[in-house]
């Protein structure tokens, strides 16, 4: 090997060692490479020495204040009404929209996920948005405010604190503004559900109403739902771990009616699931399913409820 080649290989090995997922076999191959030639050992030691000397250089890696991550900003057609600016701190929230928006809107969105797909997006200010299955998100950042709009599905936000620029999530004409750090929003059947996992979020079901009389403050471990007509449901306490389990690739079901459990699974399953026969005697489901292995989950669920599974064309799943 040429000296340059040896150096390259030493760097590659070093980054494999630090990667965090090296296997025993790889580790043995590294030892063999290192012992094969003193030049290999020397090159490795050079990388290692640099790595260990880097402590004082941490400030050099910090992002400059005026630098933001590259991203796309589209002015976009504002489908949602304007939001009253509310000074905000950071928060994490989950917003879920129950209705499926039309396909065109989904396709035009800045970011979207297909069914069974999930994505993590770094927003222009460094806040994070985790898109669950079948979701669409528009980014509408300006100099004075950070706004994102959920066009469908479920998104969990981890919001970076910035007093000068409030962070709001728009959905169905309402807004959820971070006052305190994590929240998620979900849109289903014309209902937007806001779940707060950290901090405090101000939910305004009608973003045009400046009087703030209908605003609700939702804190960590709470959930509230509102409709497009501005009506807002009661505050509920929730198990925040279960609500955002999908971020860990899990689907948690607790005492859910069988048909409801199937619907929930159907949100992630790329195929169609059909249930035949009498559905009234099936009882409830409590399960912990891995989103990566939903077929196993469906089998287990069927087995525990005395159902047989038939799969057709790799797409249609029939329970009977």
């Amino acid at each position, binding site marked *: 090997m040429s000296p340059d080649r040896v150096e390259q290989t030493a760097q590659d090995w070093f980054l494999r*060692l*630090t990667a965090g997922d090296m296997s025993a076999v790889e580790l043995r191959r590294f030892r063999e490479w290192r012992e094969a030639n003193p030049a290999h050992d020397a090159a490795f030691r050079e990388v290692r020495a640099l790595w260990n000397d880097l402590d004082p*250089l941490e400030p050099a890696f910090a992002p*400059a204040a005026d630098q933001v991550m590259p991203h796309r900003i589209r002015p976009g057609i504002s489908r949602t009404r304007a939001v009253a600016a509310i000074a905000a701190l950071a928060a994490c929230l989950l917003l879920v929209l129950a209705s499926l928006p039309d396909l065109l809107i989904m396709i035009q969105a800045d970011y979207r996920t297909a069914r069974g797909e999930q994505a993590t997006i770094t927003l222009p200010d460094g806040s994070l948005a985790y898109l669950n299955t079948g979701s669409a998100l528009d980014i509408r950042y300006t100099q004075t405010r950070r706004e994102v709009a959920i066009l469908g599905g479920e998104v969990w936000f981890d919001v970076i604190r910035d007093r000068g620029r409030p962070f709001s999530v728009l959905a169905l004409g309402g807004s959820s503004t971070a006052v305190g750090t994590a929240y998620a929003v979900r849109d289903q059947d014309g209902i937007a559900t806001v779940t707060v996992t950290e901090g405090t979020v101000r939910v305004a079901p009608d973003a045009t109403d400046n009087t703030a009389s209908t605003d609700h403050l939702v804190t960590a471990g709470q959930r509230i739902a509102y409709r497009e007509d501005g009506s807002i449901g009661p505050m509920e306490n929730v198990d925040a771990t279960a609500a955002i389990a999908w971020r860990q690739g899990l689907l948690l079901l607790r005492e859910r009616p069988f048909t409801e459990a199937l619907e929930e699974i159907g949100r992630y399953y790329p195929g169609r699931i059909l249930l035949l026969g009498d559905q009234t005697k099936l009882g409830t489901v409590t399960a912990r399913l891995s989103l990566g292995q939903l077929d196993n989950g469906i089998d287990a669920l069927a087995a525990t409820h005395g159902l047989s599974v038939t799969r057709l064309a790799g797409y249609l799943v029939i329970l009977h």
Partner: protein
Amino acid sequence: MTDSGLLQAYRDHEWELLRFLARRLGSPATAADIAHDLYVKLLGEPEPPQIRDSKAYLFGMAANLATDYLRVERRRGEILAEIDGLVWRRRDEMTPERHALARAELGFLATAIAGLPPRCREIFRLHRYEGLTQPQIADQMGLGITTVYKDLKLALETMLRARRQFRATPQEEGHRK
């Protein structure tokens, strides 16, 4: 539906099985995972013939899965410990002459680092200073694992080259040890 004897045994003794596993593994959560694996295994595999005592056989399978799990965990721990020793310098290796880089050399390196793309700097920062693994960084930043790797390599190579260049150039200020 006709169920195998083992599946039936699982259903009849699930609670006992979970407690059995939790005692062995010292964690109810891990026990639930292993029990789930066992259940999936039972669903997927044909029943071996000639099982006289389904319950004993089932608990034997569970015990084997628990042992395998602990073995993998222990092996994983050994690998991580060895890697730790390979990557990081031990305290007693800190001889005075290579204790720290000279100030002039640090400045030279800092300039080289400033020339790196922001994403590359951020990835290296998360890896070296925040201790995130490469898959964690990929996950957190929504990037592919190869992108993370290439950025780390770029940072490492840039610094190695800068340091070599610095050491090859005579310093006016004189060498600070």
